[in-house]
């Protein structure tokens, strides 16, 4: 699992690659937590390079969203492949997060 960030306008694109599972979730939580600590308020999480996400990965996103909610921030998810999308759908997280097809869509939505 790797995380790269890139400024795009007011948004910070957080591109995750690899698997977001029990083993990698703590690292992802630390990395994203650091971004939030910097006061970033507008995140676009790009899942283009994510091939698998487990419930521990969902928890990281959930906790991120909860923190952003407190600071009146916003987060968009995008670029999910069908497998990843299915996890969101099955768990019902699709109804909790704002999920868009492409990064461009996500940036436009913000």
């Amino acid at each position, binding site marked *: 699992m790797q995380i790269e960030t890139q400024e795009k306008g007011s948004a910070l694109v957080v591109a995750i690659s690899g698997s977001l599972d*029990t083993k990698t979730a703590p690292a992802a939580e630390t990395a994203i937590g650091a971004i939030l600590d910097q006061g970033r308020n507008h995140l676009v999480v790009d899942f283009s390079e994510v091939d698998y996400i487990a*419930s*521990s990965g*969902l*928890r990281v996103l*959930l*906790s991120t969203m*909860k923190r952003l909610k407190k600071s009146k921030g916003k987060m968009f998810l995008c670029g999910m492949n069908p497998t990843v999308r299915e996890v969101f*759908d*099955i*768990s*019902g*997280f*699709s*109804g*909790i997060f704002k999920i868009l097809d492409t990064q461009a869509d996500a940036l436009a939505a913000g």
Partner: protein
Amino acid sequence: MKLWHKYALALFIAAVLPVAVAAWQIAGSGATEVAESAREYHTATADVALGAVRALVETATAEARTLGAALAQPAASMDDRLRAARALLTGAQRLENYVVYSPEGELVFPMKAAGATEGEDTAVDVPSPESLPEAVRKVAMDKGVAFSEVITDAKGALYLPLTVRIPKPDGELYAFGWSAVPLANLSAMVSELSERRFGSGSDFVSLVDRQLRVIATANASMLGKSLAGTGPLSGVNDGGIFAKDLAHTVEFTTAAGEERIGAIVPFVDLGWGVIVEQPRDVVYAAVGRVWSSALLVGALFALAALILGTLAGRRLSAPIVGLSQAAGRIAGGDFEVRVPVKTKDEVGALAGSFNSMAEQLTDTIAQLQETTRAKERMQTELDIGRDIQMSMVPRDFPAFPERREFDIHAALEPAYEVGGDFYDFFLVDDDTLCVVVADVSGKGVPAALFMAVTRTMVKAHASAEASTDEILSEVNDELAEGNDECMFVTVFLALVDLKTGAMRFTNAGHNPSYIKRKSGEMIRLDKLHGPVIAAMEDVPYGSADVALAPGDTLIMYTDGVNEAMNANKDLYSEERLARLLEAKQWTDANGAVKVVLDDVWAFQGDADQADDVTVVALRYNGPVAG
């Protein structure tokens, strides 16, 4: 063999071998040289003896001629001539007697030294011949002097007879003069020579004549005895070897067993020989001394090499022995051990490498201990979590033996590390069964506690009057509040009216459950009624209704089933589960659970179980009559 032993041995061999070879060569050439110098010494000694013999013979010859010349003086009277001759005989150094023979070889008169009376002239102490043989006269005529075989007098004294030609002043033959030259002086001479050359008491020089008789020796008892075929003349039977002027070296063993070496030098004029010989031991004592010196030097070298080798070997091997001991201590668990780096050579480099290795080992061990401790902590936590988890789910089957309307069975196989599955079933009232299958995100004690809270809340809110969506909404709001860990739970919740088979259910982010009708028809309860619970407050949940007919089976499971992996990392998949349920038959809930588990384990094979596997089956038998 220890390392320093090898070093010491190598140095010892390196030092001693050349010395040993040198000593051997020195001793070897020494033996040759000693033999050579002994030969020279023997020959030179013989030459001295020969010189004395020659001087004696020449002096005697000259005196015999002078005496003859006095007799042949034509001017003087016979008396005067005899007087002069007697005077010469008296003053002669070698001559003791003189006999005159006619040119025809007949005895004319014997004469004695001056002072003797006339009449005594006829008596000569040695047996002179009655007449001179022609052979002797011929040699004397040709060469001026002839020597005959050595003769002995009545007392055993030895004499050399010589015959000289006495010419007249005009050169014509006047007469022959004969004299027996005493050889006693020669024994004194060789005795003195032997002593001078070989030390006192020695009889190492002797003179033999043509017949191999001893004619001069320090040992008087040997005089006149033949040496033919014995001692130095072993293998020699006549004086032929003295005919040529050629020195011989001899080596022989005496009757007493003593080894002797020496030389035989001929005196060709007379056909005599000088024998010089001495004990071999005495000669080679010098070689022995060389050997001894070489051995002593060699031994000193060996000792020095041994001492140096030991010191150097210990010094060389000391760091390695130190390393070896240090390595032993490390192997024994002492990671603090270090070795001093004293040199800049390979051994020093080795010591340096060893120290850095020990350093790394120390760090690694420290890390390992830390990791192990952390793992143990985590493992303990996981174990506690699993204990809570397993203590929470009902595991006594049949669960409701007195109820014949339904049959429920469940299995939960916890994974080693991950997993937060739980299930529950209970009667909310006499006719209503509540079934919960859930999966808490997270693991260990927090997940287990979250699980316990969830289960308690569901139980608290479940009632025959409440709908499944209402129950979950309330549980969700309560759980979401203050859920800082952001844990969440996927839940399938169902309420079944046991009298009618009517079932209401809500799926909150959980896997779809299946109903297999008695007819074999499969129904996938695929609709999702809301997200996982505990994630967000105020999320709306829905519900659905389905009617169970007698003989229908409701099969619920967690994602541990469809995400089970085999060794090739293939997923078990929901499709495979659906096909399995469609294909297989069972007669009770236990049979349905077993069908699923058997297939999952068969698929997984030797691969590790990644997540908790939970299967719950509810078979509806229909209302009990009356």
